[in-house]
């Protein structure tokens, strides 16, 4: 795999389309997306429902493959990878944060955070160390042995973020991470995400409906009808 050289972007989408169904039933979710994301960027993705932003996120997250067009991740063509190869790519480079947290029930916060490390085959002792470290980074020291049902929504999302960053990912994919949270909690979560980009250089791609949340990002991409409708730099990120 090539390393990122100066003029290459971390993520490069060129002419990406995605069609569901066939013939007259075909639904064109994406109609030709060109997009670059550089290392360390914090990008917000906005747009109404059905605008194609979720489809684009799935493709960016290597969960789905485009119908046509090329997706280069670290100069590697994701389109030619098998299902298992994409799983390995996700395992090693991508972190996911979902709107619904998607933590394992009846499993402690620490065990949830350790989950991706198990798939990486890391020893139990090292897992515990890194898991505690990640929980500390999201401000949940002391909550390691609590199960998700004992945590508030904001705390659960923090556990989910800890689970995403515990593997030191290149990119963190956040799908409406504050969709289920109140504004105070949302702000805390956004500050946490900002801190990860600034301190660790983790690239973040975040889908959101809330313009207030999008303002934390350095760049906002707006989707409409399967195309990128507008792109704007937010100038200074939240200060």
């Amino acid at each position, binding site marked *: 795999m090539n390393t990122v050289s100066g003029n290459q972007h971390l993520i490069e989408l060129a002419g990406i389309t995605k069609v569901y169904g066939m013939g007259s039933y075909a639904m064109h979710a994406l109609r030709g997306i060109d997009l670059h994301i550089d290392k360390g960027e914090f990008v917000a993705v906005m747009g109404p429902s059905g605008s194609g932003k979720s489809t684009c996120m*799935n493709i960016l*997250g290597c*969960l*789905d493959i485009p119908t046509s067009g090329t997706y280069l991740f670290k100069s590697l063509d994701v389109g030619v990878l098998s*299902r*298992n190869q994409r*799983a*390995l*790519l*996700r*395992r*090693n480079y*991508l*972190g*996911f944060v*979902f709107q*619904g947290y*998607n933590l*394992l*029930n*009846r*499993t402690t916060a620490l*065990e949830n955070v350790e*989950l*991706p490390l*198990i*798939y*990486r*085959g890391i020893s139990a002792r090292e897992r515990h160390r890194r898991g505690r470290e990640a929980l500390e980074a999201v401000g949940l020291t002391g909550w390691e042995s609590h199960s998700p049902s004992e945590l508030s929504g904001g705390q659960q999302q923090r556990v989910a973020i800890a*689970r995403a960053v515990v593997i030191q990912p290149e990119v963190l994919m956040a799908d409406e991470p504050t969709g289920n949270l109140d504004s105070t909690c949302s702000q805390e979560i956004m500050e946490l995400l900002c801190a990860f980009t600034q301190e660790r250089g983790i690239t973040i791609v975040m889908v959101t409906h809330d313009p207030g949340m999008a303002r934390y990002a350095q760049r906002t991409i707006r989707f409409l009808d399967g195309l990128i409708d507008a792109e704007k730099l937010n100038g200074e990120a939240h200060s």
Partner: protein
Amino acid sequence: MIWETILLALLAIRRNVLRSSLTILGIVIGVAAVITMVTLGDGATAQVTADISSLGSNMLQVRPGQGFRGPGGTRSTANMFEVDDAEAIGREIFGLEAVAPTASRGQQAIYGNKNWSTSVMGTTNAYFQVRDWELESGRQFTEGELRAGMAVCILGSTVHNELFGDQDPLGATIRLQKLSCQVIGILESKGQTGFGQDQDDIVIIPLRTLQRRIAGNTDVSAIYVSAQEGISTNAAKEDIERLMRERRRIAPDEDDDFHVRDMQEIVSTLTSTTRVLTALLGAVAAVSLLVGGIGIMNIMLVSVTERTREIGTRLAIGALEREVLMQFLIEAVVLSSFGGLFGIILGLLAAAAGAHVLGMPFVLNPGIVVIAVVFSAAVGVIFGYFPACKAARLDPIEALRYE
């Protein structure tokens, strides 16, 4: 990785203890049923073998007639043996330990006002050796008593109990028809045969006494032969058959008019019968194991559906198809193995209790325990595979969206 997967499976099982234990109930019952049936069956086999061995497993019986040849047969028309025949066998056949000519009659035994219908057998001291039968008290016949046909008798323990109760019969006189007999010994109890016959219901007198004073002839109705240790009863049987054909002048194209019964043969016939029964019972019980396996598949399918989002999450964070498959497969195997383990414990307890109630020996068969473990694990693999495949093939996007 495999260890980690087992750990994950254990965690998943721990997360839902109630459902897990209900899931394995089918396997527990299946395995317990198989173990109980087979263990009890083995106990029955062991008991039958032991019962028949009490007849003397190195023993041959030579009887006139063609033996088990259907109704009628030629038994009644065949000539009886003579004492000479027994002597010839003892003299000419190699490797025999003892040869006892016998003749029997059904007879009333009377002592005082007590009256017991029993079987009177005339024979020699060799009979005790052939049957490996010790005296509990008293003595065997003397040479003189045998030769002169004196009125002495040795009682089986049933006859002893019926006629004398707790009294000591030694020296007492009992009456067999018109013959007054002095009791000189009491046999040890041998219990019932495998056929349910009471071996102790017998009075033994010298052969000559029976022939002269009760039967009024010189017939010998059966010759009991025991082979020496290490001598094949089969070889002895063939030798005796050859000798008897010669003595009874049977032409080469004629059938035997006597038969030699090998106890070993009877043992193997009976044990193979009980083995077949055991196998049948075990097979019926194995059906419940199959049902238990289907139960596991059912619950695993429910579990996969219920945990769709979890599977989606695992796939999203980079679990390979193979790893998800292994997780669910191992979960099924761990579940069914736990079921097997509890089933073995339950089955052995039930078998021990059953053996106690039925008065049979408890025979632990390590083979069936191993089979039960392997089989229950196999049930997990077979019935866990389909749900596990279903889980592994889920589309992560769909799975994450699943409500």
